[in-house]
């Protein structure tokens, strides 16, 4: 990819900045060729990767190097887009929001700094992947489990900072963060919580600060670069029981949510309960053309045939309980009785006990896998996906209303409906996977219009997304309209105070520094 300069930076000034950065990290860790820029492109870009072009990438090895780069970025007015491992597939991968931004790839900082077996936490640098942490736990024979997202190729810290979701009792990843160290936009270094006292051993144990608590101010944000964080881990349970119900009809999701939510809120169920639709099971079985060979959406009659043929319900609930065997048994009886009120068919049950093997696809037991990325092959070619991810209150009514709305819009665009609901507590994350062939221009254009429509219509109905792709960060931020977009105005006041030159991740989640405010809404080639 050719060089796209950051705003108001001449080629000579840019070269000067590159030389300065190389002076800090060494020239091999400054990546500024055409091929390097392609490496940091959005792997699943819905359109040309040149809509979100990095000008270069720089990979520091230490906090000191990060601070030095940040100070130089201020001097040279060259903005930075920090990424942990840069595997944010479906939301922009490692690409920056604003053209010409330099990706700061923190992947070289990949140490597990602490792994406490008793207090059940770790301290990680941004480059520590889920696989890395899992492997270290196995090597140390630590009695600890992770929570992993569907695609676990990425960073533990990065995923948590992006509000990522997993499917164990530690599935709300941002809530596992405790005690952050961050480089601020002026190069200063801060530690939150008890870590604000040098050497305090409660840094990663007590989740609040004396005074305002800033940990999550560094999540989904451009207020600083997180260089280490504490992450709470699940103590390995003695046993775990998986109970699997096939839920026959699409509208059954209503009673399923109303049954599980009260048990989740009371704590009887502690898992983040993942409820995928049937397509989630199919996408790993082969290619779409093996099951429906037309570009139009798979019609209901064919869906019914496929459900029968593959013995699937429209939804599946694979709920897991964790703990001592008598406790799990007791909880299981309550859950099964609750589900039986609406579903006669007995569920399947799979017990696991300490000493039993754990297979590599056991996401609900915290085993990392990249196998969900196989869904690219469902589409074939350069298959890709974007996630449309609204949050709904965890009641049957809200879920059914939101689903009816998004299902209709998706059907109007003649696209397959592939949804999941994850009950995280009093809310559910509804992730709608929109899959497309990157090389089919018509399909890509349609996806973009569909995404536009979903955001606008969902907002009209009163729901918002928890996370989105680069190209839609501004439209989604626009939906947060209380008191004349007070949240964005607040974010931007804080941004201006902390980052007057606007050099950290301009435009992330629709928060623009004054220096680049004219870029708001740019690179967004969709509808209104």
């Amino acid at each position, binding site marked *: 990819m050719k060089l796209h300069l950051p705003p108001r930076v001449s080629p000579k000034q840019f070269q000067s900045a590159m030389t300065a950065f190389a002076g800090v990290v060494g020239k*091999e*860790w400054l*990546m500024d060729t055409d*091929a*390097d820029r*392609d*490496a*940091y*492109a959005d*792997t699943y870009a819905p359109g040309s990767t040149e809509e979100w072009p990095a000008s270069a*990438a720089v*990979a520091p090895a230490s906090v000191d190097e990060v601070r030095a780069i940040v100070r130089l970025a201020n001097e040279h007015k060259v903005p930075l887009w920090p990424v942990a491992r*840069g*595997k944010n*597939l479906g939301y922009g*991968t*490692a690409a920056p929001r604003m053209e010409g931004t330099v990706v700061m*790839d923190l*992947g*070289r900082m990949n140490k597990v700094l602490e792994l406490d077996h008793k207090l059940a936490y770790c301290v990680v640098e941004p*480059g520590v*992947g889920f*696989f890395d942490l*899992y*492997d270290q736990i*196995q*090597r140390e024979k630590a009695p600890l489990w992770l929570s992993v997202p569907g695609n676990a*190729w990425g960073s533990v810290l990065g995923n948590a900072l992006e509000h990522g979701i997993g499917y164990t009792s530690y599935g709300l990843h941002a809530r596992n963060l405790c005690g952050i160290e961050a480089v601020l936009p002026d190069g200063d270094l801060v530690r939150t919580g008890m870590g604000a006292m040098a050497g305090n051993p409660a840094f990663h144990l007590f989740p609040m600060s004396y005074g305002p608590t800033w940990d999550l101010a560094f999540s989904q944000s451009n207020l600083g670069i997180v260089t280490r964080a504490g992450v709470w881990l699940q103590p390995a349970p003695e046993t775990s029981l998986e109970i699997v119900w096939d839920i026959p009809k699409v509208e059954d999701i209503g009673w399923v949510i109303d049954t599980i939510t009260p048990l989740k809120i009371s704590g009887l169920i502690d898992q983040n309960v993942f409820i995928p639709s049937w397509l989630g099971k199919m996408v790993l079985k082969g290619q779409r053309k093996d099951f429906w060979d037309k570009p139009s959406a798979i019609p209901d009659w064919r869906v019914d045939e496929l459900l029968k043929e593959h013995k699937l319900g429209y939804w599946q609930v694979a709920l897991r309980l964790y703990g001592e065997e008598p406790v799990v048994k007791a909880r299981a009886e309550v859950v099964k009785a609750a589900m039986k009120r609406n579903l006669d068919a007995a569920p399947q049950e799979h017990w696991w006990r300490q000493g039993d*093997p*754990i*297979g*590599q*696809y*056991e996401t609900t037991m915290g*085993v990392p*896998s*990249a*196998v*969900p*990325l*196989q869904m*690219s*092959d469902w589409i074939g*070619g*350069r*298959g890709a996906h974007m996630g449309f991810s609204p949050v709904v209150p965890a009641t049957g009514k809200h879920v059914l209303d939101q689903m009816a709305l998004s299902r209709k819009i998706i059907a109007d665009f003649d696209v397959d409906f592939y949804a999941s609901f994850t009950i995280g507590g009093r809310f559910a994350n509804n992730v709608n996977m929109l899959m497309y062939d990157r090389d089919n221009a018509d399909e890509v254009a349609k996806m973009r219009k569909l995404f536009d429509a979903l955001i606008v219509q969902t907002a009209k109905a009163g729901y918002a997304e928890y996370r989105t792709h680069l190209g839609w960060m501004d439209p989604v931020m626009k939906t947060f309209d209380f008191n004349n977009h007070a949240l964005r105005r607040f974010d931007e006041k804080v941004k201006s105070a902390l980052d007057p030159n606007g050099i950290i991740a301009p435009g992330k989640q629709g928060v623009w520094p004054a220096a680049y405010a004219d870029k708001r809404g740019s690179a967004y080639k969709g509808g209104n």
Partner: protein
Amino acid sequence: MPPYMLRPVAPEGDRLKPGRDGKTVFEAQCGYCHLVGGMGTNLLTKQQMMAGNPPAKGLLSNRDDLTADYVKAVVRMGKGAMPQQTKVDLTDAELDAVAAYLGKAG
């Protein structure tokens, strides 16, 4: 369900220097998808079988038809469902080592 494939610890020393151990680097840094049961192995097994080859050829380490140049091109550009890999994922020196390890056809 295949068992979890524990990867080796990545080799010590300067990642930029030539002479990295190709097998260890491959397993540590490509092993997310290219060990038994991984995403890449699953898709490649299907492809290999469609081409009339035994399923074991789904593992890159079992292939004898790969060239070092081809491996480098795929790693840097991506292919199908495989995303492109950056120089932080795999330095040029590491890629040389992996390409030599996998590229049994030269």
